[in-house]
């Protein structure tokens, strides 16, 4: 160490360089060389760019552990940032951005803004990325200094790499902030398309990715862009090809059906590049195949004639083979089934067990998919069963069960063959499948009871799945042939109910027992009832998910076939996500927890424990905010207060009448509502006050409201809904009619089914354009609205459902809460509330597709928060 230090202080440049190299070498292998920090730092004062680079490398690595010392280097950075050599300028800016020390960022701003306007494109492009780095550390600073605007300017830069990096930086900021800073306008679009032809391959990827997020105004614009993007399909870089495919696929949607010729032409153009991806390295093939899997689901016609290229090669890695099989199943059709079957049969003799099993099950899936070819598929399966290879037989049995479910009562003839192979089965799934088949077709198998008997001998050792199937199958058998199997059923039920500690098995056993003992006919209906016919599961992703994933081609989600938020942790200011990237297993646990919570809240509180903590809180019941809507001078001596409330899922208009000077007891009225924006109308026109209101006193009643679409006045798009409801009341005592208007308090229209899954919420939240966001700040909150728990309680009473809460990163004491609500009309609203500890205010942000109603929903939340 000491020697190194001496060398670092050497005056000989070569010795110095060597010394720094040694330091970095030990740093790389994990040795701690941070004690040399100041010594290394001293070397930075040099004109030698090689040495400078080395020192910067060291600096970046130790800036995290030695933030104080890094400050010493700030001056060098600032100086270097105005060096005459553009390489040094860029190096300084780049390094400064990599040092994530808060205090350094202040010094970063000036050099950065200079660098962004540097004459050298290399410096400009480095600076563009540096803005993204800075945004990661100090987003406020970036916005304050107007760096985002400068980035926008960079998009029209003359150098294509600068454009590409500008796009990359803006996209990153847009994604981490959730704000739409990367808005593509017509002029930006032209510039991007122009830069696309010139910039580096990676730049092309950035630009194509941002284009994929853009929605063209109409089909013609989409077509125009596609035309410019199509040449990218011939790029040698697979990343460029995939991104281009993504852009084209997403725009194809917009071209609509009137343009089927163009779409057909495009479809033809897409196939060759996709197939060519399969000739690259196996790793890229894998990625391509996962993506093709999606594309095939979306547009099967692109590759319908190319099934041959997905046939596995002898030397493909196993993971490529598995993916190819998946795609073969997706592309199989009446036309090519013979070819495919021949191929699959061949795969079934290969060495790799997993692959063979998958091939066997693929044959079965073909049978399920193609009714007309089912017979041929089954013939192949039977042939494979004849080979008596243990795992082939097991897999075949498992898929044949599916075939039976798909085509009930059609291929029973093969049961005999299956029964011959009973003894080869040793896996639970295969056994369970076989037992299911025996139970289902017990009447056609002469010795069904004997076969079951053989399985029963080892009942206790079996896997729970097998035990359950055995139980069911025995009962089925008994119902079909009660004479011979009574003993057996009795024995199985005994074993299931008395000797097993598996609750599922025990429960099922008891149910069967009771059914059989009380009403065998009912048992027959239950146990032997028709089962729904299963369907081909080839195109198994839901269309909505598929569309999301198509938009994500060439990203990880297209490989996992999951939407991005299901495996990615968001970094800042955005949506709540749990640790979704954990194993599925843990997800299941979460769900389970949620279920437990739900059932606890659902009122049946078996253990009488769930209520304890709840009781500490005030119970909120919705009340109607009453406003004075008519005075006695207008309403024939009656003062009227009115408001709306929801109770038990019904909406009521609450009316309070004060008999000021009507001169007599009043009790009976008729009510009529004018057409309004909500389609509300009284369910019953008669309004009766019980007891009658004598002069000088007052009384309340409520009128149930019904939703009547005929009563709804449509609100033009983009306009805010008028919350006013005009009411006419007829006093039945003197036939006097008076009118008043009351503003609907929107929260009464939130329906009880507005609760959402967290994932669904995130999806929905993200799908809404930020332009449709509404903001409000509510200050001077009453005491019962400052804590999130209280607000949550209160909102729950109004059917405003809590989704999630989480602290805001990088902001002490701030917390955001997410709520969802749904109006009785089916409009959904999503709200994000931000609270800060110690501050008596909350920020409300509301998003909805029903923009006209958004303002109302927002003010409803505001007034609830305020408590008025």
């Amino acid at each position, binding site marked *: 160490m000491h020697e190194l230090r001496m060398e670092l202080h050497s005056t000989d440049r070569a010795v110095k360089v060597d010394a720094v190299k040694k330091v970095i070498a030990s740093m790389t292998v994990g040795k701690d060389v941070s004690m040399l920090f100041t010594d290394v730092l001293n070397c930075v004062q040099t004109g030698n760019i090689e040495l400078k680079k080395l020192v910067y490398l060291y600096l970046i690595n130790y800036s995290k552990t030695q933030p104080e010392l890094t400050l010493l280097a700030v001056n060098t950075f600032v100086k270097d940032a105005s060096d005459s050599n553009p390489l040094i300028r860029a190096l300084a800016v780049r390094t400064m951005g*990599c040092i994530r020390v808060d205090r350094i960022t202040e010094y970063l701003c000036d050099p950065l803004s200079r660098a962004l306007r540097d004459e050298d494109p290399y410096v400009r492009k480095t600076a563009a990325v540096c803005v993204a780095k800075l945004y990661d550390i100090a987003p406020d600073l970036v916005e304050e200094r107007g760096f985002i605007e400068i980035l926008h300017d960079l998009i029209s830069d003359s150098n294509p790499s600068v454009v590409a990096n500008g796009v990359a930086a803006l996209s990153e900021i*847009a994604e981490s902030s959730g704000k739409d800073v990367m808005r593509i306008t017509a002029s930006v679009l032209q510039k991007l398309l122009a830069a696309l032809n010139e910039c580096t391959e990676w730049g092309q990827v950035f630009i194509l*990715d941002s284009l994929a997020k853009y929605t063209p105004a109409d089909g013609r614009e989409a077509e125009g862009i596609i035309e410019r993007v199509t040449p990218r399909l011939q790029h040698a870089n697979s990343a460029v090809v995939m991104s281009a495919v993504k852009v084209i696929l997403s725009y194809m949607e917009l071209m609509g059906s009137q343009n089927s010729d163009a779409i057909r032409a495009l479809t033809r153009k897409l196939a060759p590049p996709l197939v060519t991806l399969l000739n690259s390295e196996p790793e890229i093939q894998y990625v391509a195949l996962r993506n093709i899997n999606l594309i095939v689901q979306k547009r099967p016609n692109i590759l319908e004639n190319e099934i041959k290229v997905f046939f596995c090669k002898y030397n493909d890695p196993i993971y490529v083979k598995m993916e190819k099989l998946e795609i073969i199943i997706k592309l199989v059709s009446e036309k090519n089934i013979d070819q495919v079957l021949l191929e699959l049969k061949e795969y079934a003799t290969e060495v790799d067990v997993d692959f063979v099993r998958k091939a066997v099950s693929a044959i079965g*899936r073909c049978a399920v998919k193609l009714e007309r070819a089912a017979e041929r598929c089954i013939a192949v399966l039977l042939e494979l069963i004849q080979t*008596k290879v243990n795992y082939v037989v097991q897999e075949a049995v498992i898929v044949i069960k599916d075939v039976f479910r798909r085509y009930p009562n059609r291929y029973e003839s093969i049961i005999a063959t299956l029964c011959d192979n009973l003894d080869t089965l040793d896996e*639970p799934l295969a056994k369970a499948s076989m037992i299911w088949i025996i139970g289902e077709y017990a009447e056609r198998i002469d010795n069904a009871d004997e076969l079951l008997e053989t399985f029963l001998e080892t009942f206790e050792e079996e896997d729970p799945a097998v035990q359950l199937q055995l139980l069911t199958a025995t009962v089925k058998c008994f119902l079909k042939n009660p004479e011979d199997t009574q003993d057996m059923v009795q024995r199985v039920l005994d074993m299931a109910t008395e000797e097993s500690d598996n609750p599922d098995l025990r429960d099922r056993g008891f149910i069967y027992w009771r059914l059989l003992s009380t009403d065998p006919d009912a048992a027959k209906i239950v146990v032997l009832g028709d089962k729904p016919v299963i369907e081909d599961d080839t195109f198994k992703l839901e269309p909505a998910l598929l569309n999301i994933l198509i938009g994500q081609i060439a990203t990880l989600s297209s490989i996992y076939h999951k939407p*991005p938020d299901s495996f*990615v942790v968001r970094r800042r200011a955005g949506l709540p996500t749990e640790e979704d990237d954990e194993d599925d297993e843990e997800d299941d646990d979460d769900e389970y927890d949620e279920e437990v919570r739900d059932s606890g809240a659902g009122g049946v509180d078996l253990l009488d424990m769930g209520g304890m903590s709840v009781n500490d809180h005030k119970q909120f019941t919705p009340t109607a905010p009453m406003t004075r809507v008519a005075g006695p001078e207008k309403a024939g001596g009656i003062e009227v207060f009115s408001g709306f409330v929801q109770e038990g899922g019904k909406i009521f208009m609450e009316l309070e009448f004060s008999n000021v000077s009507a001169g007599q007891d009043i009790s009976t009225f008729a009510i009529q509502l004018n057409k309004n924006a909500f389609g509300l109308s009284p369910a019953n026109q008669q309004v009766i006050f019980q007891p009658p209101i004598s002069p000088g006193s007052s009384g309340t009643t409520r009128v149930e409201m019904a939703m009547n679409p005929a009563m709804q006045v449509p609100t033009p798009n983009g306009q805010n809904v008028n919350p006013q409801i005009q009411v006419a009341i007829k006093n039945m005592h003197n036939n006097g009619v008076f009118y008043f208007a009351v503003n609907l308090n929107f929260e009464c229209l939130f329906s009880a089914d507005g609760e959402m899954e967290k994932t669904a919420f995130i999806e929905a939240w993200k799908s809404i354009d930020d332009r449709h966001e509404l903001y409000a700040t509510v200050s001077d909150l009453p005491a019962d609205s400052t804590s999130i728990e209280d607000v949550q309680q209160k909102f729950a009473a109004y059917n405003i459902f809590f989704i999630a809460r989480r602290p805001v990163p990088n902001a002490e004491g701030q917390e955001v809460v997410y709520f969802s609500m749904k109006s009785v009309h089916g409009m959904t609203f999503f709200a994000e509330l931000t609270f800060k500890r110690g501050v008596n205010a909350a920020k409300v942000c509301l998003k909805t597709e029903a923009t006209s109603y958004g303002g109302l929903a927002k003010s409803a939340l505001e007034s609830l928060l305020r408590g008025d």
Partner: protein
Amino acid sequence: MITNFFVLSPRGDTILAKQYRSNESSSGKDMGAHERTHTEAFFRKIKFWDDTKSVAEDAEDISTSSVGIESSSSTSVTTKRMGDAPPVFVMPDGLTYFHIRRNGLVLGASSARNVSPNTVLEVITTYVICGLSLIRISFCLSPLLGQLLSTIARIFKDYCGTLSEEALRKNFILCYELLDEMIDFGYPQVTRTENLKSFVYNEPIVVDSVPLTGNMVNPKTASAAAVHKPVISSVSANGRKTTGQQNSEIFVDILERLNVLFSNNGYVLNSTIDGCIQMKSYLAGNPELRLALNEDLVIGKNSGRYGSVCVDDMNFNDCVNRNEFESARTLSFIPPDGEFVVLNYRITGEFSTPFRIFPSIEEVSPTKVEITVLIRAEMPSNHFGANVIVEMPMPPGVTAAASCSLIHAPGTGHASAEYIAAEHKIVWTMKKFPGGAEQTMKVKVTLNKPCTTQIRRQMGPINMCFEIPMYNVSNLQVRYLRVAENMVGYTPYRWVRYVTQSSSYVCRL
């Protein structure tokens, strides 16, 4: 967008480690430690890849159809060989890893990325593991990153001359410098060797190339990799270094890899050519080049035109100017330094296969099987197949013995055939296989059990590996390659080679 990048040796030691972004999940002092455990965990994962988990997932997919039956996931645990790990997977820590294998080495990188509400993914960590038999770079932005990995591997090779643990260790400073320029804040920047040259100051330390054993060489890179010379010392373009007289030379390979599948009666079931024109340029001054291909080249199977060469699809390197391609099938480009692929092409459908394989099986007695494999070379007699290896798996466990006898055509170099009991296969090698000749191998297999259909099925398929120098199946030709402008006294050496290789050349038995 990559946060981390590292290179590990085959034993899992860190050779290079570069962090581009901070990882939020870890902070402060334990960062270094955190990273190290990551690389270790990753290394363990790929080394002992156990795919039960992914299989269970697949099983889930499949069992969606088995509604009525309570399915339980299969419990069989299979420990897999190294190399079975799919190139993209998530580790329990939430990071996504991507890795590739090159040249017997494995290049990998891994990263977990964050995705915004919309589309773009954010990479958290990227790693490179590298070593004598293993270099891994892993990334996250899927194809982009997969491609980037290959690119980085190529660049390292261009600069260091070879890609090996030793080369990387000795040149690690250079590699850091390159990484710095290639990726900024996780965004790939410049990845063209000649562009990088102006930013990179370190000089490579040349390492003797590690002799790679035959089957470890990836056929795609093996040929042009014959020249193990770092680009930087041969170039005096930026005037910074003028180290003596340099040969101006350019290597051009027209490389075709064949995928052919024969049925047991010798019919071609499936055949594709996967070809590329690859160059390695050491031309001083980077002059513009013109490359002319067959004039009657047809692109697109269904284009309706007819020509001597018909390719399904073709894609080109960035630097290629295709203005005259439609009319005259000429490309012009300024060759980047180092190794690069000018274009890739793909041909499916009928072409004359260089070798045809005719197997036949005869059961002499229940425990004796006689297999005859006849291979006929159908290319012209002035060409020959080199390093021909024919492999035929035998049923494991039941094959007691197998004796091979050969009938060779004249002109065949050293040849042998034997049964390798440990690998349960028959290996037949020929140094040279002249065009137009026929070779036959007769194998007498003795089984220790009577032959059943299942045992029959476990024989084969026959897999053939070969290389045919100066021959290509597709007829795609380089008509000429010349420097665009006439420069006096500038006569670069041009080495044009045609090579046909087997990629998957299989005959079913």
